[in-house]
């Protein structure tokens, strides 16, 4: 019991920090934390995540779908996905802040750099793996290329496509946590600036960031289930 007492006390302190502002050690007793600041930081993090995800989708989705439909550029699509995983997040954000400047717009672009590779690669792979016989049948029925893409290939590609979107979302929301380094205050501020918020603030930030990532992941999993056509769910996955 004693071994558990201290972690439980820490969690209690973190929960208290979220709801009630506490005097900080470094700001001369100024109050930090509390519900209003927490909500503000959480909304900022959600906002930059959604902006960056939208930008990634706008850039990556048309390219990935088009390349997949044409069946060209496989090397590019696959290599981009592999290279994207290797981008060191901290270096990306720090370099953006030091060279281009801080702010929401720059941050959104930097975060989109992380979101584009998984979406583009999975859009490509998803379309390529769509059943060729179905595509040929659609062409034989006289569908235009655009109809084939939107009515046959894209519905078949939903699971792989959404896996890419989910991967991009996780990468973006995770990296939005270190956005305070680029002058945008997100929940990560609680985590990174321990001298201001104290241990309770650090743990509170960690808990909230984890919950936000999980909530986004669950919503997208739900969206994927709704987008997947009934016929696809019946067959062996």
């Amino acid at each position, binding site marked *: 019991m004693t071994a558990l007492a201290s972690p439980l006390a820490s969690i209690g302190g973190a929960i208290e920090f979220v709801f009630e502002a506490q005097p900080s050690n470094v700001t001369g007793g100024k109050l930090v934390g509390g519900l209003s600041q927490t909500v503000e930081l959480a909304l900022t993090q959600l906002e930059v995540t959604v902006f960056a995800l939208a930008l990634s989708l706008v850039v990556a989705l048309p390219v990935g779908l088009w390349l997949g439909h044409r069946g060209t550029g496989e090397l590019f699509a696959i290599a981009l996905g592999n290279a994207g995983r290797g981008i060191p997040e901290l270096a990306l954000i720090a370099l953006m802040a030091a060279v281009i400047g801080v702010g929401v717009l720059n941050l959104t672009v930097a975060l989109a750099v992380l979101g584009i590779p998984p979406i583009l690669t999975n859009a490509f792979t998803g379309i390529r793996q769509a059943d060729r016989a179905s595509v040929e049948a659609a062409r034989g029925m006289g569908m235009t290329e655009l109809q084939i893409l939107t009515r046959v290939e894209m519905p078949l590609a939903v699971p792989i496509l959404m896996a890419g979107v989910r991967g991009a979302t996780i990468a973006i929301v995770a990296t939005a946590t270190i956005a305070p380094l680029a002058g945008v205050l997100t929940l990560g501020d609680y*985590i990174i600036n321990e001298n201001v918020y104290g241990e309770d603030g650090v743990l509170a930030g960690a*808990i909230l960031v984890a919950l936000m990532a999980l909530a986004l*992941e669950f919503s997208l999993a739900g969206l994927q289930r709704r987008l997947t056509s009934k016929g696809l769910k019946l067959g062996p996955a």
Partner: protein
Amino acid sequence: MIEGHVPLSAAVEIRERGGACEEDPNALYCFDWAREHLVERFETPTIQHLKLVLAAVVLGFVIAFALALVAHRRRWLQPPLLAATGVLYTIPSVAFFFLLLPLTGRGVDTAIIALTAFNLQIIYRNTLVGLANVPAAVKDAARGMGLTNRQLLWRVEVPLATPEIVAGLRIATVSTVAIATLAVFVSGWGLGSQIKNNLNFPTAIITAGALAILIAILFDAALYLIQRWATPWRRVRT
């Protein structure tokens, strides 16, 4: 400023503080500084980075591989294990480091635990897919030859699943090298330390980032070669 006129200690101090570039303070990349400080500044962080990644990937592989072998035979375990590793994968590493704070405190151990947890799903899922993709005819033939379940697993299924298993390891390793730059926040370790401590000095940031990418490429190439060596039959063209 002429180098000779400044006491050496003062010159070093200026560089330490602002990370100034002697020939051009506005240069994006200061090659002179990088040449001069590469070993002194980056050797230890690079070694730390390698240690973090190796520990996390080896631990992640041992745990995820074992889980996959168990779940391969007991299929009812697959959904809960996928969900559990999925949660660990989804929680951002920076948050994970500090969620562990009440349990393991700050330090390298905490960083390695969080990086390992992140890895599990990638390796687990690829191993399971690899094992599931072994053709039924091959397994039937092996059983017909009198192989026990254990022999079937280690002599037929695992070798045939090797390409997928290594593919998972490559994804996990490359991702971990990138994410290990964040380990600095909880442990002070890794190439991230040279980024976090030089936030207004692009040369240090670029050098650290480039070293991380280089490490990722080297690990990836090494794993590719291991896979080729471990699956000689895949090189035979029919």
